[in-house]
């Protein structure tokens, strides 16, 4: 959970004190040998991480194999990128491909949802003895966020099993936005409460609270009185408005569409405009299409295609794309072979596709290849930790910087991942 100002807990006090006096973070900085970051790789002021939950099929989206029977009669279409074709399910994205670098040679060893999702978000294999921090948490820990008032790490429509801040302090966990159409949860006065009532009540609560706090030196007592003041200030502040997508021009709202994912993408653009560092939006369509692949894609893809394309176009038009890294991720692909029984596709971690756009990433580019039927990696295998290393480096995070869990174990932002330099111009 994320307080809007850092709390004055002992740990933070020590960290800030240490930084001020010694100019270092508290823990010994034992660096692994890491590559330096070329200047053109560290341009991302913000990251928008689009997570397709369930394992979205690669040959039905961004790595089609025109003409083979496995395509199930679905065609490929040309795009705004020379020589690059994508699935006919994504006509709007086809017009945005000149911004995009496709990584068609993703590969993973984790073929189960929980484990695959965990690896995608943390770069570590899931284990029941520790929870690793997600990439957004690493980001705010290592490089903070341009906007000092808004939380730097936000999760829109996130899964209950999201690893969030893992073993790192909870104030670095992503602020959850459950319904992007509803703004910040509980930030509006209840229906029958007027401003006068509210002022009276908060004043009374503060007066009551003072008495308790005076007799209670425990720092959390005072902290709770303070967060109430912060909450009241937040409710009145201009910053809150960024969460209200209804303030956006109706044409723009329509461009993104009314699906939760679309609204989430619109909210993300607004947050990026306000200088929020890391925003993840989960697309909660059931991409885990074990049944009726073609019919499911037909139903699910239009709002997703619309939202993604609108986001890239909007960011580009506003001049934000150059400093915003947009990533589409998923836990695995789907088997090219369609099942006779269910007409669906199973899990397929052997090869799948992520894509990158913005922040200096090459446009109209394809990195890596899968084989002719989309079964295996043919060229330049890339792992999820590699991608996370790429994203981290784009934000200017030191890949070799070690952080320790409370039990003393050392970790880095992307474990053994190596950044894919070729994605950048």
């Amino acid at each position, binding site marked *: 959970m994320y307080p809007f100002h850092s709390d004055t807990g002992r740990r933070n006090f020590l960290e800030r004190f240490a930084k001020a006096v010694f100019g*270092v973070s508290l823990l010994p900085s034992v660096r692994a040998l890491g590559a330096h970051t070329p200047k053109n790789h560290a341009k991302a002021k913000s990251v928008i991480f689009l997570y397709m939950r369930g394992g979205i099929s690669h040959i039905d989206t961004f790595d089609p194999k025109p003409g083979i029977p496995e395509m199930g009669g679905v065609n490929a279409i040309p795009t705004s990128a020379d020589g690059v074709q994508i699935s006919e399910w994504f006509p709007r994205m086809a017009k945005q491909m000149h911004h995009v670098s496709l990584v068609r040679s993703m590969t993973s060893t984790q073929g189960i949802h929980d484990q695959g999702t965990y690896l995608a978000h943390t770069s570590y294999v899931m284990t029941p003895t520790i929870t690793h921090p997600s990439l957004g948490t690493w980001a705010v820990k290592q490089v903070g966020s341009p906007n000092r008032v808004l939380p730097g790490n936000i999760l829109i429509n996130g899964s209950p099993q999201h690893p969030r801040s893992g073993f790192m302090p909870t104030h670095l966990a992503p602020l959850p936005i459950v319904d992007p159409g509803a703004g910040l*949860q*509980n930030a509006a006065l209840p229906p029958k409460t007027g401003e006068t009532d509210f002022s009276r009540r908060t004043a009374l609560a503060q*007066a009551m609270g003072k008495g308790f706090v005076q007799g209670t030196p425990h720092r959390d007592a005072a902290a709770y009185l303070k967060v109430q003041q912060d909450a009241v200030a937040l409710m009145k502040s201009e910053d809150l408005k960024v969460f209200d997508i209804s303030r956006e021009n109706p044409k723009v709202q329509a461009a993104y569409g009314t699906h939760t994912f679309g609204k989430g993408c619109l909210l993300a653009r607004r947050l990026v405009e306000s200088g929020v560092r890391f925003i993840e939006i989960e697309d909660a369509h059931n991409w885990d299409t074990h049944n009726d692949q073609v019919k499911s894609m037909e139903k699910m893809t239009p709002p997703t295609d619309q939202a993604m394309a609108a986001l890239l176009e909007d960011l580009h038009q506003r001049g934000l794309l150059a400093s915003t890294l947009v990533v589409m991720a998923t836990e695995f692909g789907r088997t090219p072979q369609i099942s006779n029984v269910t007409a669906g596709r199973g899990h397929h971690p052997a090869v799948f596709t992520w894509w990158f756009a913005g922040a200096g990433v090459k446009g109209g580019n394809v990195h890596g290849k899968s084989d002719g039927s989309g079964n295996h990696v043919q060229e330049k295998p890339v792992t999820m930790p590699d991608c996370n290393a790429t994203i981290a480096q784009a934000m200017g995070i030191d890949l070799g910087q070690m952080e320790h869990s409370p039990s003393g174990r050392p970790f880095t932002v992307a474990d053994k991942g190596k950044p894919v330099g070729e994605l950048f111009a």
Partner: protein
Amino acid sequence: MANKQGYTLFATITTLKNTPSMYRVRNLFPILLLSFFGLFPLRQIQALEPPRFEKDILPILYHHCFACHSEKQAKPKGKLRLDCVDGIQSSGVVVPNKPDESELLKRVLLPHTEVEAMPPLKGGAQPLNASEKAILRQWIANGAKMDSWVRFDHRQTAFMQTDLANPKKNHQQWSVELQERIDQWHQARGTKLNPPVNDESFLRRVYLDVIGRIPSLGESTRFLESKNPDKRAKLIDELLASEGYVSHMFNWKADLLRLNTRGLSPGQPGKLYDDWVKEAIRSRMPYDAFVRKLVTASGQLWENGAVGFYVRDLGMPLDHMSNMSRIFLGTRMECAQCHDHPLEPINQKDFYQMVAFTFGVSNLGNPGGYSLENVKQFPEIKAKLASMKKDEALEQSISGTIAPMKRMTLDTDKKLTFPETYGYDTTLRGKLVEPRTLFGDEATIKDGDRRKAFAEWMTSPRNPRFAKNIANRLWKRVMGVGLIEPVDSLSALPNPTHAELMDFLTQMMVQLRFDERAFLAVLLNTRMYQSESVRETPEPGTAFALRGPQLRRLSAEQVWDSHLVLLVPDLDERKSTFQLSGVLDPKYLRKLTAMTADEIIAQARINQVEHARKRQISLRRAEQQKERAAALARGDTAEAQRLAVLHAKENKETADSNPKPESEGEITAKETDPRWKLLPPNLIRASETPLPLPLGHFLRQFGQSDRREIDAFNRDPNTTHSLALMNGDLTNRALADGSLLRRQLAASGLKDEFRTQLVYRAILVRSANADEIAITKNATQESKTPEQDVIWALLNSPEFLFNH
């Protein structure tokens, strides 16, 4: 230079716990900090008494040296052993009276950037802090005496029960004796208990600590107006015997065991494991029996809910042992899963030897998924299918039908071998691991039943850490801080401050035959528990000073449940209407397990038809949506409306009572009890609420554990908490005219100041003082909703969120 200072700061803070109390001055940290600038001579903090070996030096050697220099290593580094007198003396690393000639001291004084510095950071060890270095120096300067110490016993001797000739008869006697010990502890230090609490404070505290919520208005009034001189003891007994106790204790066990109602494993309903734990608590199953049953559980989840213990860590026997060791033995071994533990003399071999006891437990079946053991019908099914025409769809349906059964938990012949990468003795690679206990007695394996032997060793009163672990954790539960902290780091070394008291509590746990409620009764009846709380922030590394319970924030569950007291009558009786149905219904699963091969094939056909039917409905709905969307796209709203009506009629006829495919097998039935019919289904106690919960849920916001990891809860203040309390659903419901709280207040017939007092009692479980009455009167003078104002203000006061 900056790095070194920052580094030493880290070492100071995180190893503060190793500093003996006599050297610990208030705010040691700034003194040490300043000493780095040469502004405060270290000599000032040296005490008057010379260091004693076992009390002051041994812990340093244990935490910083034994991981490489003890009998635990096949080849101690540099052939140096520091865990016995011979090792220390024969090596010459310590020259009595000459600290500057002692290699031991020289090496620990080297800056960590030097290759020869000890302990080496590269190995992951924690270097000594300035205080520890000073103590070492002093000890050597004073002759490096080791008194009567000979060697360190890594295996720890068995725990010996004492005082068996004089068993206490009831918990009141135990309470008196416990309090005597606490009083003696204070006497020796010239400290004392805080003043005793009044009835109001006791009332609120004991409800929260025993049944996890504040008392209702009726419960408060009954207790506060009672004139019975024994009312406190009686209340303690009542609460410990109540259903509310089960709810609160369940939350605690659930965090430790990582229970997850709907997230155990696909096809394995976690609710069955949840229910088993609840029933174990309700039926007063003794703690040792509880653990034995979990460790030795076999069978299907719907036959024996306890196998959830193994299903939870499906396919991960090494991690399973790490977790088991942490929660039942207070010993964190997970580092040693992959390499020798860098901070303790537990090595990878030790770890593997422990795993060898439970490694043979499997719930994955054979690589094909099915074996005679878990699906006894399988060979016959296979034979029948071979004799029929190939029907891929039927085969898939059969596979899906019997899938839950393959997760049966049972003992197999699987044997653990040392990994091919085992680095400490290459001759062991690939060899069988012989099971061996980590400490205390050896385990005697009879009839090859490793789990039984392991369970007996673990839960025996003789186990050096089993009773101690639960005693310490239960102490923490009601006192707020363990005698030993952190509670999952019990060590082979005696605790410097509380060794005797800890021993007494351990003796008590054993003599009470692991009855958790009786143990709690003893603690709750002490004067210490009934003293004013310690209201300062606890300092990490500082031993608990036993003045009274530690003030702390309520758990997410306690906050939620306390709100519900104001909204739901007979809260403890309200259970969830969440039910398992269809393929997750235990009745169906039990039937399935007993079916013949023919019956299973028939059932598979039924499931196939049902699945196809649901699929048709799903496809038809998608088509309907397309038709309506097309009409709207054409601008033909009339047609769209016509279609909507037509589709609604059509859907009613093919009504599907089962919910979405993702939640197949789970339904929430309608509430029928008149007390709660008009309340939403989610207003039930946290222990009743099926997990996982979405991120925006009140319980998640306030830090409920996601049960992914042990004790993954969080209690840090956060702005979102305040937003929820100010503008959220629970507060709005409490304020509403028809809420339970408002109706109770109205029914009282009280007015003005007396009414305000009642609100205070209902929410903060105390009376308002004169100032508070004046402030409220003043603030609500012009208000049209004075009562709601006060309720709101009290619910939003920090006081509500703390156990004080």
